[in-house]
């Protein structure tokens, strides 16, 4: 059989997710951190689509296959919609901070300590 095996797609997803996680932890600019979160969500989407395609092999009954594939693909649309909503709110918050202090570096956001 030729074609790209399942593991390659899952591996790429895992790599993207890890890159996102590492990025969130080491970057200092909230906008870049947010881009890393988006990268994590895209890794999730890739994983969902990979598994959705995989259902066609796994499920014996065609009707179940359809429903099962649809579930994964639908989830991707929901993830994208929610990510868009998060961008709207997140950039609003970053703007509000920028108006207050002309600087959004998170190392300087240290008023809250205890």
């Amino acid at each position, binding site marked *: 059989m030729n074609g790209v095996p399942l593991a390659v797609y899952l591996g790429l997803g895992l790599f993207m997710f890890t890159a996102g996680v590492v990025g969130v932890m080491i970057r200092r600019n909230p906008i870049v951190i947010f881009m890393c*979160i988006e990268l994590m969500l895209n890794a999730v989407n890739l994983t969902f689509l990979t598994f959705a395609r995989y259902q066609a092999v796994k499920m014996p009954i065609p009707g179940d296959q359809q429903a099962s594939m649809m579930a994964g693909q639908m989830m991707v649309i929901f993830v994208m919609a929610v990510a868009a909503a998060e961008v709207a709110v997140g950039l609003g918050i970053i703007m509000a901070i920028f108006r*207050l202090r002309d600087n959004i570096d998170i190392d300087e956001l240290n008023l809250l300590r205890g």
Partner: protein
Amino acid sequence: MHQAFQFPVPEIDFATIAPVVFVALAGIVALVTEMFGNGRDKRTTIWVSLIGLGIALVTCVYQLGLSEYTTFNKMVERDAFASGIHIVIILATALTILFSEGYMRDKRIAHGEFYPLILWSATGAMIMSSTESLLVMFVGLEILSISLYVLAGLSRAEEKSEESALKYFLLGGFASGFLLYGIAFVYGATGSLNLVYVNSALAHSHGSSTQLLLFGLGLMLIGLGFKLSLVPFHLWTPDVYQGAPTNVTAYMASVSKIAAFAALSRILIAYAAIHEMWIPALTAIGVLTMTYGNLVALRQTDVKRMLGYSSIANAGYLLVAVIARGAHPAETSTTTIVFYLLGYSLTTIGAFAVLTLATRNGSEGTKFSDLRGLYQRSPAAAIILTLLAASLMGFPGTAGFLGKLFIVKDGLQSGLTLLVVCLAVNSVISVYYYLGLVKAVFAAGDEASELRLSPLKGGVAVACAACAIGVLFVGIFAGPVLSVIGGAH
């Protein structure tokens, strides 16, 4: 001739989602009222919100008596647990709204958008807690969280508030990523987004699909662990709780935890078949959460931070009940979790409501020392706070005592001895810092305390009284309360 194509229609019972719809509608009406109102007077908006919540509460209580069923193509679950959690969410939201008006006016942040946002956030919490579908759970979580990100930054002129909003937002998005990645693996193993199929997949599976399911569970636990601020995923909690406006903090500490605990409980029940594999990990998290929360709370000087750490510790206590229920769903009842959440929400919201009295003329005090002289200023508030602290300590006769007692009972029944011992030890440690709070309230005030502290009147008074009476009522009449939240038997 072709037969006309017809879409298959799943069985849908719209009455099931009536409570959720009423709360969401109340949010829309509140928004419109706020749009056409004069901007200064918030009374109409508050009444609209409270009436909407009241109607939703009545429908929830009615639904408690019904038998279990699922509808909307298995996307909505109606059982006693869901209705009980809905009731607690609605009560917590209503109490928060009650004490918010005076506080936000005193803090000069009386923005009208608070009311629709908090109602929609409650909608998300309710959606999240009454489903077995991971898709719906995720959407509910995001409706809850996105409204909360905005609410945390409500005090726009204050850097502290914006900083807390940004931290909450980034960590929330990060946590959602983990939760979603976990859901993806559950979907990969079962071919479905519904938790119902996890059980059967675990029952007749070969090794690889069990591994996928376990990996998925681990990632979902990390995601929900952030939301529940379990140690080691708690780092954002004290900062966000301290920076956000106090009424939003009260709401975060109660409602968002209620919803996330309901979701966690459903997920763990789906994984009951392999409970010996996840119990050790969760036990470690539980012990760490309780101990760390309490030990760090001991050395706080800021009341909001202290209550933040106290809420971390409380999440650890409740985790014991959730583990017990997840491991042995057939032998434990749902009422322990709902009962503890009810008592915890009443005490926490009440404590934050009393704390808002230290806000006056645009300045807010949140240190222990800012509460000095509260007893002279308004003895009722001081006594209510003492009562709430007693419940948090677990004093007999209060909701907190019985809540912990039920958790201990469930924990011992499920053989979680280590966690139960840890809970008992931690309850003793926690007495110190709650007593510190009581001491601060009864300390003699000076001339400045008159200017610093607001009098106890209006919505704050109603909310404080309701919390205090509720804590006592739940503590004394536990039998009837338990049979109501237990639903039909």
